Every structure is written in structure tokens, then in C-alpha cells.
């Protein structure tokens, strides 16, 4: 699971990070075959821990089941998505659909008229339920 090395903090553009996370989470959650983003217990428990690194609520770099890392020069994004697949759906097919939908959603969220940044996505199935 390679990932880009570089700026992993949200300090430069927290709102952009928040937009990316929101777009990715919504797209993944709405993909057929996805039961939920990452089995809940761990995240529920971690939910007691504030995850802000400055810049207010929009600076969160984590959302349940989704993490986003940005690398500058050139700008590129890497997302890691953890999810549970519904029984009856083939896990591999669901991950492919999630990658496609999430990639589209994130590119749209980042669109500002300039060159589109590269977006890579790692999807991990943590449960079949």
C-alpha cells in the first residue's frame, strides 16, 4: 500500500481537506454493496478523541473510514478508505466501484479551473456483513 510522502497536515488548506473528506465519504457510502465505512467500534471509541490539528473543525483530516493526505509540488492526493461490504456483493467489485465513484467525487471537489491534481485511492475491506 504505497502512499505519497509529503505534507500530511491540513494546515495549508483545511477547508479543502474537509471538502475532499466529505466528498469521498459520501461517494463511498452511497456505493452499492457498501454496508458502512469501517466497522464502527474502533471509530466510535476514537470519536472521544479530538482530531483537530489547528484551524477549527474544518481542519479534521479524518472522517469515519476515510483519511486524506495531500502532497505538494506537484499537488496530489492519496485517500485511504476502510469499509464493510454487504454479504451478497463481491468485495473486489465493491472496492472497484468505490474507487471509481470516490475518484470522480474528489476530483469534482478539487476542481478550481486549474490542472486537476492526481488522486490515488486505497480501499480496504475490514468486514463482510
Amino acid at each position: 500500500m504505497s502512499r505519497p510522502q509529503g505534507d500530511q497536515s491540513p494546515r495549508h488548506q483545511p477547508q479543502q481537506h474537509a471538502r475532499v473528506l466529505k466528498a469521498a465519504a459520501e461517494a463511498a457510502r452511497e456505493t452499492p454493496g457498501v454496508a458502512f465505512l469501517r466497522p464502527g467500534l474502533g471509530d466510535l471509541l476514537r470519536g472521544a478523541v479530538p482530531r483537530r490539528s489547528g484551524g477549527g473543525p474544518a481542519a479534521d483530516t479524518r472522517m469515519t473510514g476515510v483519511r486524506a493526505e495531500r502532497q505538494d509540488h506537484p499537488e496530489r492526493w492519496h485517500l485511504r478508505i476502510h469499509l464493510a461490504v454487504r454479504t451478497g456483493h463481491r468485495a473486489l467489485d465493491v472496492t472497484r466501484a468505490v474507487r471509481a465513484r470516490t475518484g470522480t467525487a474528489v476530483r469534482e471537489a478539487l476542481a478550481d479551473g486549474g490542472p486537476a491534481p492526481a488522486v490515488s485511492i486505497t480501499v480496504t475491506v475490514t468486514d463482510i456483513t
Partner: protein
Amino acid sequence: MALAEDDDPTLPCGRTLSSVWSRAEEDEGAADDPHLAECPYCREALSRLGVLHRYVSETRQADEAESAGAHAERIAERFTARVMDLVRTELRPGRTLPLGEPDDDAWITEAAAAKAFRTAAERLPGVHAGSCRVTLTAPGGPVKVVMELAAGLTWPVPELAERVRRQIRSAAGDGVGMYVAEIDVRVVDLLDDTGDDKEEGPA
């Protein structure tokens, strides 16, 4: 297995999540610990642990309703298996294994794959799956599956092993999307058929 740093976050009060759980689980730990009683971060973390307790409670009630009249031992076995499934998938997910091709950048935790394979094996009458390890035979795959199971006395062991292999291979290909190179089935116990509510033995 030690928790990775990322899996054992430190609360704003300075205590780790695991230490809070451990302290609260001690019979007199919470009562003797004023910090635990008063700290809003520790209290919040403990209240969220209630999710697991509710799951256990609901599962126990469902089993009792479904299996009224069945043997208590069998109820306990199923209950334990379900709780262990939860623990494996959520707290001890194990290593990640590749799905599909390298370009897919898709992965599955060993616990999730093992759960799928145990479920597939248990579709056979009288089969109770136990330990299931899924490991890479080479970097990038394919994988090897080692499953231990118990089954009714009416199963001829060679036929049982072959049927279980078929079930696992089918689950891996059709349900998961993973190429399995080798399946090692170990029958570790033969069960008395009486009292099981499934049809026993080969169909």
C-alpha cells in the same frame, strides 16, 4: 499482540484508551480511581464501549429466542463465535491481503476474509468452523487458507475436506475476489450428531 500506536489513542487527559478500559474492567478499579469517575474524556470513552456491551446483549437475546429448547452448550458456542467474530474484525483485524490486481490497490483484512471462509464452510450441514488463517504464499498473493473445523460423525473426512475446500474456493472467487492457491483443512473434532438443529452429514 501489542496495539499499534494508532490503535491506542491517548485521550486529552493523558491516559491511553486501553488503560482506561483495563482500569474500568477491574472490579474495584473505577471506584478507587477518582480521575476515572470525574474525567469527561474517560467517561465518554467508557460510554462508547457500551456499543460492545449492547451487541453482546442483543446477540445473547437473539440466540436464546432462536434456540429455545436446544442445548445450552451449543448456544454458548455460537454466542462465543459471534463475539469472537466481532473482536477479530474490529479489534484484531490482522494483516491486510491483496484483492484483485495490483492496480486495484484493494485490500481485505485477514479477519474479514477468514470470516467469509468460515461462513462458507458452515453452510455445510453439521460443520463448525474454528480457527482460520489466511496468509500470503508470495508477496502480492496468492493466499493459503488453513482452517480447523469440527463436524458431525456422519461425514467421511476426505469428502468433508473436499466439500469444505470447494466452499472456500467458491467464497474466495465469487464472494471476495481473491485467488486462493492452497487450502489446508484440518478436522480437529468429530461431534455427536444429536441435538444439532441442522441436518447432519453429507447431502
